[in-house]
């Protein structure tokens, strides 16, 4: 490095020094500043100084969340190794590695192995696998912040624990971007009694955020219909820059915006591409290569390009709609201007007017460097069950020894011996009533005290099922004449008939035939085609962002405001203040509006969609205690709506009681269908724990007689094995993630400390309008929708 004329950053040399002194630790630095080399060179330097401490075989295991990163990283590491003249082999191993290479690695492991958490667990399921890990000196986890808040984080924690168990002198290093709970992140990664360093880079990435404003502000905020207007502002930006990434939030939106842009500027055809998780992998790789080589002017994409290899030519990023979180916003911004001292350029395009306040909020958050925390998963019994079976497939395991090292893992600190025994019981005997499981022999106890799997078929099934990424049932989409286009959810395709046209990857195609998890299509000339809606992707605003949002709104009308976004919104905000009220940071606004449709109650907690969904049913429940009413519920990230055909008995006298924090969890439990929600959560758990066998897209359903839905198994277990820990986990996950219990409680705490403002408005207000539009969307097709919105707007502005 230094020979090349690079001066190492101080955090890099600090890492080298710490590593040399036998520390484990975590490096926190913005992307593009050479985080990788901080840890990698640390190992190399240590090796050069103490070659005798390193044995033959695996020395460094490098875990990264993405396969696509590994290849380029390996190349960069190899260059260094060659330059120094080291005889190290640096190799990649993941799902894409050819069998031939895998077998060779199994005979002789390289010195450095770049891999994923799943692949490591797959290695654990091989015969005599511990010999590979006996002399590992270091395990490094790249992009730890990405893994932390997911079940893949738990897979990583387990992998570290097992390797540390085999190689006690192991040093553990994490590499992370800035998040809100760095100390916790470090403790989760390294919960062991070793020397631990936390190294933070002083260097900061410069981000320039500009919001694109429409020509004029509508007095009622359009919701999601600014497309055409804004595309004329996007085109010049695409031409001004070398390569622009255009981020949308859903695959559906990316298809729509791709169409909008090429309609506005047909000259861009051929220079603009579309990239999302459902596009065929080969095509995605081609697009990624084309970006790197600077062949494309723009790419419309989803979170599919949030992470991954650095694209040198990208010098501009456009975010369409809300990024939903501060960290995500910064991550995306950071995709442009990648080298250390360049500035990242980000344009924010609102899809409705109120989103401009959000942009102002993000700017403030970035300025204050307030980024969300990532909550680690704990007590994930499904993953523990999967891991125990993995061990049983591999070398077998002894329960006492396994319990000892599992308990050290952060996720299982609070795992009781009873719960661990239950997991063993679950994989050996199935359930509590032995007589009910006579034919169940998954894992058996051998005479030598080891638990093992004897059936080759069960072992095979398990290997195919390792991992925690559970996808919807997906079908491949393929041209009749050959050539893949991408993937689509079975859920979506099941609603279509032969001959129906839909859009995928910017192409309009129509269905010819569905066969063996593959949809055969041909090009269609039809003008009308359906844009697939993929499930999921409706992330709520994070609490970090909503905090700043409330703050910005609160100060929106103070006269000395100089922020461009708020100034622009002034007419809209003024209308809100005149017809109703703008909630200050210590206020909570409720609006009651009567229209032809019925009686509306709008409330604005600004806590994100999920929390609002729960709050809405809770408030509906509490009101119906006073008077029996049926409600239609709608919500968005700002608030929720209750609509009834009769007058809603909410008054200044009872509003504090109805929005009270007392009996919160009890009332929530009464107001929602918890078992229905748990059944949905159980889907992933059932797959991870091996109760449901997944079918790969494009493959024939092989285990036809073993197909069953997780909902069915949930019901059966609920009836016959209510003590099953996996059921308990499903309910816990509902409360922790679906209901966001902590956030819900905090929200009610905040409301109880606020002044509740109850306003009666004569017509829809700027705050309520987007909510109204969102709820219309659920029931009507798109064309009717715009007409209907127009009508409501006219009525309101009369």
């Amino acid at each position, binding site marked *: 490095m230094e020979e090349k004329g690079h001066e190492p950053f101080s955090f890099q040399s600090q890492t080298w020094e710490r590593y040399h002194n036998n520390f484990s630790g975590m490096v926190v630095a913005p992307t593009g500043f050479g985080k990788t080399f901080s840890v990698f060179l640390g190992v190399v330097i240590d090796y050069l100084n103490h070659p005798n401490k390193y044995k033959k075989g695996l020395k460094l295991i490098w875990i990264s969340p993405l396969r696509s990163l590994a290849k380029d990283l390996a190349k960069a590491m190899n260059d260094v190794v060659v330059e120094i003249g080291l005889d190290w082999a640096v190799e990649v191993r993941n799902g894409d590695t050819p069998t031939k290479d895998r077998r060779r690695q199994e005979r002789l492991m390289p010195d450095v192995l770049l891999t994923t958490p799943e692949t490591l667990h797959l290695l654990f399921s091989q015969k005599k696998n511990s010999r590979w890990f006996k002399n590992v000196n270091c395990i490094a986890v790249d992009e730890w912040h990405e893994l932390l808040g997911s079940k893949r984080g738990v897979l990583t924690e387990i992998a570290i624990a097992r390797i540390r168990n085999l190689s006690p002198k192991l040093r553990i290093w994490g590499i992370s971007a800035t998040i809100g709970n760095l100390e916790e992140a470090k403790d989760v990664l390294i919960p062991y009694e070793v020397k631990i360093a936390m190294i933070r880079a002083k260097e900061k990435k410069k981000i320039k955020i500009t919001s694109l404003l429409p020509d004029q502000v509508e007095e009622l905020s359009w919701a999601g219909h600014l497309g055409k207007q804004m595309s004329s502002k996007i085109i010049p930006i695409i031409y001004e820059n070398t390569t622009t990434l255009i981020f949308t939030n859903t695959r559906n939106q990316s298809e729509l915006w791709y169409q909008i842009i090429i309609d506005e500027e047909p000259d861009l055809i051929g220079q603009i591409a579309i990239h999302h998780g459902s596009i065929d992998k080969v095509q995605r790789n081609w697009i990624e290569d084309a970006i790197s080589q600077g062949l494309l002017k723009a790419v419309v994409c989803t979170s599919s390009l949030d992470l991954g290899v650095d694209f040198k030519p990208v010098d501009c990023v456009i975010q369409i709609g809300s990024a939903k979180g501060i960290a995500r916003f910064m991550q995306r911004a950071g995709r442009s201007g990648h080298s250390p001292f360049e500035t990242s350029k980000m344009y924010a395009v609102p899809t409705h007017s109120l989103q401009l306040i959000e942009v102002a909020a993000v700017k403030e958050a970035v300025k204050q460097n307030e980024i969300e925390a990532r909550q680690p998963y704990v007590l994930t019994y499904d993953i523990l069950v999967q891991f125990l079976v993995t061990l049983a497939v591999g070398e077998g395991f002894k329960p006492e020894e396994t319990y000892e090292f599992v308990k050290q893992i952060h996720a299982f600190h609070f795992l009781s011996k009873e719960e661990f025994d239950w997991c063993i019981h679950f994989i050996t005997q*199935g359930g509590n009533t032995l007589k009910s499981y006579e034919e169940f022999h998954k894992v058996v106890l051998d005479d030598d005290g080891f638990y093992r799997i004897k*059936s080759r078929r069960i072992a095979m099934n398990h290997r195919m099922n390792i991992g925690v990424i559970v996808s919807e049932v997906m079908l491949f989409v393929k041209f009749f004449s050959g050539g893949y286009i991408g993937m689509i959810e079975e859920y979506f395709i099941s609603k279509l008939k032969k001959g129906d046209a839909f859009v995928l990857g910017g192409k309009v195609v129509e269905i010819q035939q569905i066969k063996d998890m593959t949809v055969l299509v041909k090009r269609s000339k039809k003008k009308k085609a359906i844009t697939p809606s993929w499930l999921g992707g409706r992330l709520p605003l994070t609490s970090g962002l909503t905090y700043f949002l409330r703050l910005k709104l609160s100060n929106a009308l103070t006269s000395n405001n100089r922020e461009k976004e708020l100034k622009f919104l002034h007419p809209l905000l003024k209308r809100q203040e005149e017809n109703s009220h703008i909630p200050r940071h210590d206020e909570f606004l409720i609006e009651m509006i009567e229209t032809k449709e019925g009686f509306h109650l709008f409330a604005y907690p600004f806590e994100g969609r999920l929390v609002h969904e729960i709050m809405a049913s809770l408030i509906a429940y509490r009101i119906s205690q006073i008077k029996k009413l049926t409600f239609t519920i709608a919500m968005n990230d700002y608030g929720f709506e209750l609509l009834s055909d009769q007058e809603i008995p909410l008054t200044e006298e009872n509003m504090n009681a109805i929005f009270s924090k007392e009996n919160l969890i009890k009332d929530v439990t009464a107001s929602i269908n918890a078992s229905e929600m748990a059944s949905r959560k159980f889907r992933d758990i059932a797959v991870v724990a091996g109760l449901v066998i997944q079918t790969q897209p494009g493959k024939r359903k092989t285990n036809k007689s073993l197909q069953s839905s997780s909902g069915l198994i949930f019901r059966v277990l609920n009836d016959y094995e209510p003590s099953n820990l996996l059921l308990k986990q499903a309910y816990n996950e509902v409360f922790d993630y679906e209901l966001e219990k902590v956030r819900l409680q905090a929200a009610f705490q905040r409301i109880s400390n606020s002044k509740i403002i109850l306003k009666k408005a004569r017509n829809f207000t700027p705050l309520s309008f987007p909510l109204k539009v969102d709820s219309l969307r659920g029931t009507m097709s798109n064309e009717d929708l715009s007409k209907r919105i127009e009508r409501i707007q006219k009525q309101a502005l009369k």
Partner: protein
Amino acid sequence: MMQNISIISKTIPCNDEVLELTNQRVIYWKTQKSLILSDLHIGKSAHFQKSGIPIPKNVLTTDLERLKQLIQYFNVENLIIVGDLFHAGYNSDLDEFKTWLTQFSNLKIQLIKGNHDRFSNAIYDQFKIEVFKKDYFLNCLKFVHDFEEPSKDFFTISGHTHPGVFIKGKGRQRIKLPCFQVTKNQLILPAFSLFTGLNTRSAPKNCKNYCFTDDGIFEL
């Protein structure tokens, strides 16, 4: 032991015959002293267990107990099963079924083979089950496993699809219930076993759905 189930029925005319649909997933055919049912999938829980998926056997036990109560309640002498009696290979669930059968001395079972029924006839002989490979006719009724083309001369009764239906309520509420699907000249039975999924996507044209719960049966 299981509690007594509540049996509620609804009569429908089918050509010249009268059939009674019940909320317990069977049809009672009074004149023939028969129950018509489909998709028992006996052996499914043990088959899952053998493959390392712990599904408790109680699933089968409750299914059989329910069938026993139905046989006694209607006092029938025949079971007409329109396919998928057994789920997969021979396993301990089938032994339980065999033992269960011994309590009925005069019960006659007729099976129209389904896609899951892949045993040789010798096995069915052991259970004293009369097997029909494709279809079975009685009076104006035709019994098959999976429905193909409507026949003009017969009223077709089939199973196989595990029909279910969504009931949509206000405020985006949805409930999924099993159902009988009935048209002018055909009827599709719900799966008898509770360890089966529901298929809400396939329905014949112009069909009425009779869906049911533990204590009621409704026409949609």
